[in-house]
């Protein structure tokens, strides 16, 4: 029962997400929210390696694009059946992620961030310049929608919405179990102090690599879903701006919190869409808001909410202690 109470907010969220398409006929709204779900999956990857493990990887859009392009090329050019291509796209992203991680994780802190930033940019350049494979600046057109699973088809916006929602929910559940397990706690330990983590027996290199690889896997998953949802991909999805968008979603929602990525991504994506009429001026509102948020809620909206709840519980406890008012001797 207590577990259920603790999960009340997420369950309400899930219910709203499940019912949302029934209350709107506007395909555009559904499209925007679906896109936000896809980004949220990618942001979960970034949150794991950056927020929990403390290794700020700025190659994330690159891996997102690798997943997207792998799926696109396999289905369009190689005519591989959709779900096989989907699995292969994940494998390809994860393998490349492992190779990059093996080298990148030899660097630390700022240098790791700079190194991965460069890796991300190189991925962008390769996609942009390798015309023969990727279609270069023209991009890849006509990627198919997810193939039917048994009687369930995914050719409408709503069916795609539910498919992607399922992947998002699976991602959240996976993250919940991972971050609460002892292996997941080692990530927080590494963020805290890598050397201290070593002294208590954590193989920090191995754990950082695993965390990095899982993050690239999630980026690839989001990328593959993106490719078959939007059905057109261009090199811009691997651009540095995209990485920083992901980072912004994570920071706004709460870096290193379980629900931060969903909250941050949904909020910002919906906000950007509704401020569209202001065009580029919207950044004038956005920038200061972000600065204020980082100053007053360094752990984002979810982190701020948790703090607020903790403070309230503490006050409650204090009050009940006061009311009990059995004098237990001073000190």
């Amino acid at each position, binding site marked *: 029962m207590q577990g259920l109470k603790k999960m009340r907010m997420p369950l309400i969220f899930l219910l709203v997400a499940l019912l949302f398409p029934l209350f709107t006929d506007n395909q555009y709204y559904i499209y925007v929210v679906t896109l936000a779900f896809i980004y949220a999956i990618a942001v979960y990857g970034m949150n794991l390696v950056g927020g929990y493990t403390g290794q700020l990887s700025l190659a994330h859009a690159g891996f997102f694009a690798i997943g997207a392009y792998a799926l696109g090329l396999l289905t369009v050019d190689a005519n591989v059946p959709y779900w096989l291509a989907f699995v292969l796209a994940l494998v390809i992203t994860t393998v490349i992620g492992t190779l990059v991680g093996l080298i990148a994780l030899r660097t630390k802190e700022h240098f790791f961030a700079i190194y991965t930033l460069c890796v991300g940019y190189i991925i962008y350049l390769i996609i942009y310049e390798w015309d023969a494979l990727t279609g270069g600046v023209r991009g890849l057109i006509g990627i198919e929608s997810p193939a039917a699973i048994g009687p369930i088809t995914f050719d409408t916006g709503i069916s795609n919405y539910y498919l992607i929602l399922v992947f998002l929910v699976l991602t959240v559940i996976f993250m919940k179990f991972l971050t609460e397990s*002892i292996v997941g706690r080692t990530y927080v330990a590494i963020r805290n*102090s890598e*050397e201290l983590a*070593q002294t208590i*027996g954590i193989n920090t290199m191995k754990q950082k690599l695993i965390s990095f690889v899982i993050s690239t896997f999630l980026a690839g998953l989001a990328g593959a879903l993106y490719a078959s949802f939007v059905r057109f991909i261009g090199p811009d999805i691997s651009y540095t701006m995209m990485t920083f968008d992901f980072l912004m979603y994570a920071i706004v929602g709460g870096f290193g919190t379980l629900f931060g990525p969903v909250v941050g991504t949904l909020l910002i994506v919906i906000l950007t869409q509704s401020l569209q009429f202001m065009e580029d001026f919207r950044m004038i509102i956005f920038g200061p808001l972000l600065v204020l948020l980082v100053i007053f809620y360094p752990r984002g909206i979810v982190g701020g909410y948790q703090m607020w709840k903790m403070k309230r519980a503490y006050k409650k406890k204090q009050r009940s202690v006061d009311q009990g008012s059995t004098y237990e001797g001073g000190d």
Partner: protein
Amino acid sequence: MLKLSDVSVRYGMYEALSDISLTVEKGELVVLLGANGAGKSTIFRTISGLNKPVKGTVEFNGESIGGRSASKLVKKGIGHCPEGRKLFPAMSVYENLRMGTYAVRGDKKETARMLEHVYDLFPILREKAKENAGSLSGGQQQMLAIGRALMSRPKVVLFDEPSIGLAPLITEQVFDVIQEINKEGTTVLLAEQNANAALRIADRGYVIENGRIVVSGTQDELMQNDEVRKAYIGA
């Protein structure tokens, strides 16, 4: 059980340890005395695999371990309780202890038994199990750091200046517990500046100055040694 022969360690060009040779027998409580910057922590970091010796050998139970990774050495039975009661402040007391079992997490039963044991040694930790480690007082933090080092069920534990910044009364408590841990069969290597309190519980000791061992001897010998008395005991 633990044997360093002619170990030298460098930080860049600076030689932090020069030709350190020391032994710790099974079941002993050995203390390293020395001022700040003498090299006590570097000796510990070398034994626990955080620093690699440029020269000399480190043996643990007859096996050469110099340059092995720290995580493997914890598994082998070398526990390290680092200086300055380093904890994971955002985690609860219980979670800090749980992190200590990481290297030996396969054996759930032993882990549960060890947890009980640590709670018995430090009842305050049981009381505060759910509270954030960052909210503990200095003495409680040190107890948690000691408890966490024990959670990996080490054969030898390195305690790096456990008394630093603690009130005299708390220091005494901490040393009592270290002695108790030693009596239960865990070999202890203790680095201290507080020579008086440390020698009280030690079997033997070494005095380190500028990265070299300058005096060594049994508890009595060191207590009687004029230089040691002048420099560390203040008599």
